[in-house]
């Protein structure tokens, strides 16, 4: 197994592990981190793909760079929403299904 294959596999592994983490962790910051790292897994994979041929392929690099930009903004936005949620509800967890509608919120009788 070459070192490139190592990177290929570890990229996929990071993606899978973090997808698992995203599902099992309830705390929103952990979820955000998990998503962020899932992206990183894909980036590792892409960088490894770029290394496979004789010469280095620039296209995956371009993709990774674009991907990083997207990941940064997505993470920033997600953290902002988590903070807003924490401000309004005092909790950094998503309410369970069905608890979304607070009792008699809004609407006059």
């Amino acid at each position, binding site marked *: 197994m070459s070192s490139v294959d190592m990177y*290929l596999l570890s990229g*996929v592994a990071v*993606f899978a592990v973090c*997808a698992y983490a*995203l599902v099992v962790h309830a705390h*929103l910051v952990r*979820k955000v981190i998990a*998503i962020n790292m*899932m*992206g990183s*897994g*894909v980036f590792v*994979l*892409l960088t490894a*793909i770029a290394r*496979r041929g004789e010469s280095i*392929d*620039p*296209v*995956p690099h*371009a*993709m990774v760079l*674009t*991907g990083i930009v*997207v990941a940064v*903004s*997505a993470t920033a*936005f*997600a953290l902002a*929403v*988590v903070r*807003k*949620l924490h401000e*309004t*509800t005092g909790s950094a967890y*998503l*309410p369970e*299904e069905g608890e*979304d*509608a*607070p009792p008699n*919120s*809004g*609407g*006059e009788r």
Partner: protein
Amino acid sequence: MTGAFSSINWMLAPVLVPLAAATATFLLMGLRGRTRRMAQNAIGLAAAVGIAVSALALWAMVSGGGPVRYELGGWEAPLGINLYADGLSVFMLLTTAVVGAAGSVYTLGYFSGREGEDVRRREYFQDETGSFWPLWMFLWASMNGMFLAADAFNLYVTLEILGLSAAALIALGGTRMAFSAGMRYLMVSLLGSLAHLLGVALLYGSFGALDLATLGESASPIPPVWAALALISLGMALKTGLFPLHFWMPSAYTGAPSAASAMLAGLVGKASFYLLLRVWFDVFEGSVPPGAGQIFGVLGAVAIVWGAVMAMKQTRLKTLLAYSSVSQMGYLFLVFALVAGASPERGFEAWAGGIYLVLSHACAKAAMFMAAGVVIYSVGHDEIPRLHGIAQKLPLAVASFAVAGMTMMGLPTSGGFTAKWLLFSASLGTGQWWFGVVILLGGVLAAVYLLRFLNPALIQVRTAKVYRDAPRSMTVAAFGLSLFSLFLGLASAPMLDLLAVGGPFGGGS
């Protein structure tokens, strides 16, 4: 065509116009109060007109001369960005143009609420920061960009912009529920697009190409392709809300401001479905493993029934509509089962039927959410048991709801009728009559859950208290869009001709 007309780049306009409008309205956020609102409204409406015109121009171009391709800045693929428009792309552009235009008009009234309103309301009806227009324009640009994207990676980029702006629009509601719904949608959306990205990476690793056409030529039924297909399908099924991955839909559509709910339910879910169609039928047409379509088909059939049954149990109008969407999204996924192994003629029927449902459901569901918004604006809530006799006070909103409901029921002359006719015909023609049964059953169930609201709304015994009248732009946009959806069935012939341009199955018969 005159020189001035033809010198405009109609391929670029559907993306550039909303992008420019997004930037301009974003910069205007620095202003305050009425000035800002007027300026943003003007720019937004101008952009809506511009998009509609360019979509129509593209329609003429593609119908006349077949699919068109454009290399951005003259750079060739893979490093350059290519745009590609065939009948399906233009069809989707027209869909967003119609629904988007109505939605834009709707927001004029929707966000006219005065600041410091005394009642603690379910929705706020004001946009204190002026961030609706920039977000909405980014959303629109990302959808149009997706429909014109020629390579798999640009699909990813547009998908991300789409998800981020949609999540922000949900959170814009400003209520506790809006924040949690926005957060949940954001997770779902990011997960979906990352799954897509991993799939794209696998494809690039296998074939060294991103261009959809090139991928389509080189794709073969090998394990990495199946893995990529599975990842992309899973991600997009999640974002489209296929049962049982629809868990985010009820809270997202209910928590968002109604103006945003209309666009989310009408358009955003359809964009990821478009991506799925592209990947399945343009790229992997020959390499989809047998039986894969059946999985989608069966889940879709379950969604049709389950969503309808859940819709019957809801007490809030917007939640009812959200579950109705779960049911209607199910129809779309029947396409994959119906196309598998079908003759070109039946295949085209199924494929076109699904896409026609995208258009008609987009118009109808958006109109219904707009109508729900009018109800909330006027009454302050959308709890069905407390909406008795509302039809007397809000006749146009209830009429919009009923007229748009005809598409859900699949009755003529609505677009839903055409779509369900095509899907049903394909299900009988391919011998999969059990899907046909579900298709027809779904229509009757839709009647039952829509009457859950319409019956009390029409009764005259008790009348819900109306707090204030909704601005005319809201009711007119809702009613206009619902009428449009009602007469879509009569316009099927030219629309199907358009879909046949450059589409799979050689355009059917």
